[in-house]
């Protein structure tokens, strides 16, 4: 049973560019959240999607946007990349009634 899969695993972008990260949730899961994790810190909540709508959002600027598709997969888009956007981006999924999330291994984004 495949868990949460994220692509790509690593990515290098130039400042000012745009990036799209992709996530396929675990089978049976309908809720997807995205987190940003800087080195040595815990994951920071970006936003959550359920029924193709953004349900909650953390303290991230509008440059961060997302989407959830009918098959529950999700994308995270970041526009006008800054050097400070360099981090590990984690996708996590769960069923609505579950307690904890299942996390993917993340996409390591480096902005140069």
């Amino acid at each position, binding site marked *: 049973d495949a868990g*949460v899969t994220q692509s790509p695993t690593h990515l290098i972008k130039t400042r000012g560019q745009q990036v799209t990260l992709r996530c396929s949730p675990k089978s049976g899961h309908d*809720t997807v*959240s995205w*987190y940003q994790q800087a080195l*040595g*810190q*815990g*994951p*920071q*909540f970006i936003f*959550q999607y*359920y029924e193709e709508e953004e*349900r*909650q959002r*953390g303290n991230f600027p509008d440059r961060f946007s997302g989407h959830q598709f009918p098959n529950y997969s999700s994308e995270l888009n970041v526009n006008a990349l800054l050097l400070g956007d360099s981090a590990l981006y*984690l996708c*996590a999924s769960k069923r*609505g009634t579950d*307690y*904890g*999330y*299942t*996390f*993917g*291994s*993340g996409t390591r984004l480096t902005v140069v």
Partner: protein
Amino acid sequence: DQQVKQNSPSLSVQEGRISILNCDYTNSMFDYFLWYKKYPAEGPTFLISISSIKDKNEDGRFTVFLNKSAKHLSLHIVPSQPGDSAVYFCAASLFNTNAGKSTFGDGTTLTVKP
């Protein structure tokens, strides 16, 4: 202002002994708490959770204790095994629904020595 704090960046324990990982929070509105374990090059894995209406939850070798008055929770691992060596994250939520989000601490690296 960090709302969830894990003040010990690392902890080293002998195999077979008890591991105690601590977590403090500042937002009294948090009503659901979770612990995650993370191995290198993997995403965090959900371990155990506790609702604010309880003060203890047990799952095999793992027990989480919640002290609401002190805004403190702890994870006990008994007995500790070398495979438990990982980074442990404490997380807190305002509510456990589809709309819930979790605030994470910065993690504690546990090393269990054989």
